[in-house]
């Protein structure tokens, strides 16, 4: 575990997580969620869990973002909450 890497990744990760929950525009929220997944993938890889990082990159940052965007396209773009 390298402190500098961890620090930088977490520095981005925590604001991104909060922003993904707070955004009213769901399309933007899906994008930010993809960024969150990618940062998590970096964190897994940095901790030595490369298989998990690979899965996170393929499923979390890749396909699930596409699924969410496809769903938003067919529903409402703005959250009323």
């Amino acid at each position: 575990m390298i402190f500098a890497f961890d620090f930088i990744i977490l520095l981005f990760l925590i604001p991104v997580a909060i922003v993904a929950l707070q955004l009213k525009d769901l399309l933007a929220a899906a994008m930010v969620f993809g960024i969150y997944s990618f940062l998590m993938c970096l964190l897994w890889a940095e901790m030595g869990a490369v298989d998990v990082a690979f899965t996170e990159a393929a499923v979390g940052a890749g396909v699930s973002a596409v699924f969410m965007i496809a769903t938003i396209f067919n529903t409402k773009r703005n959250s009323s909450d």
Partner: protein
Amino acid sequence: MKKLAGIVVFTVGLILLYGVSSLDDFPSWGTPDSPANKSPLSQYFIKNTIVDTEVPNMVTAVLADYRGYDTMFETVVIFVAGLGIFAVVRVFEHGGASRVVTADTKPDIIITNTCRLLIPLIQLFALYVLAHGHSSPGGGFQGGVIMGASFILVALAWDLDIALKRFSEKQAFICSGIGILIYAGFGLASVFLGEEFLNYGIIHKILPGVDSPEMARYYAMLGVEIGVMFTVTSIMFLIYGLLATRGKMTAGL
């Protein structure tokens, strides 16, 4: 109400942070005395994976051999997720309206030509991830997702109809079933040869060119991963098609 929820989340977060950082009984990162590292099971895996299975990547060996049941039913979970989305979302239109092609829905020449170059590379990489999962990170799930993503890219760049011409809905469902049957088939083959379900070592009796149980485990793991890849690829593509078209499976985004 929102403020109250915020306070609750903040307090729970603080308690969790306290629990994982400052208590003495929580092991620090990567320490050899942590319960996970000291348990006899992980000691066994670390010492004997290469002896038992000839697979250098321990994660693949644990995933596809030592806990093969778990991975088999994970594949079934993906299959059932696809079936569930199909059951909820799919609508059938009898004698439906033909789709309207406007200027907006014509595929863009830059995007389609870039995808023409990219898609074969993505599919080749997916096959590499599958086949090389024994000695590097990767395996059936990741390879399947990447392969599914390449079909989704066809649907995004051109049209879902063009993608369905190459990999139709019916073919996708048949392939997802075949994947699970391949996995269970390896399990049943070892049952018929006189071992437990998914205990692949005994398969060396029927695999040509394989004379030791270790290499039989190695190749059976590859076969099992191929089954997982079939299911994951087709279910990912199906889920995308159903979600992007409100269950009509035509036209698309």
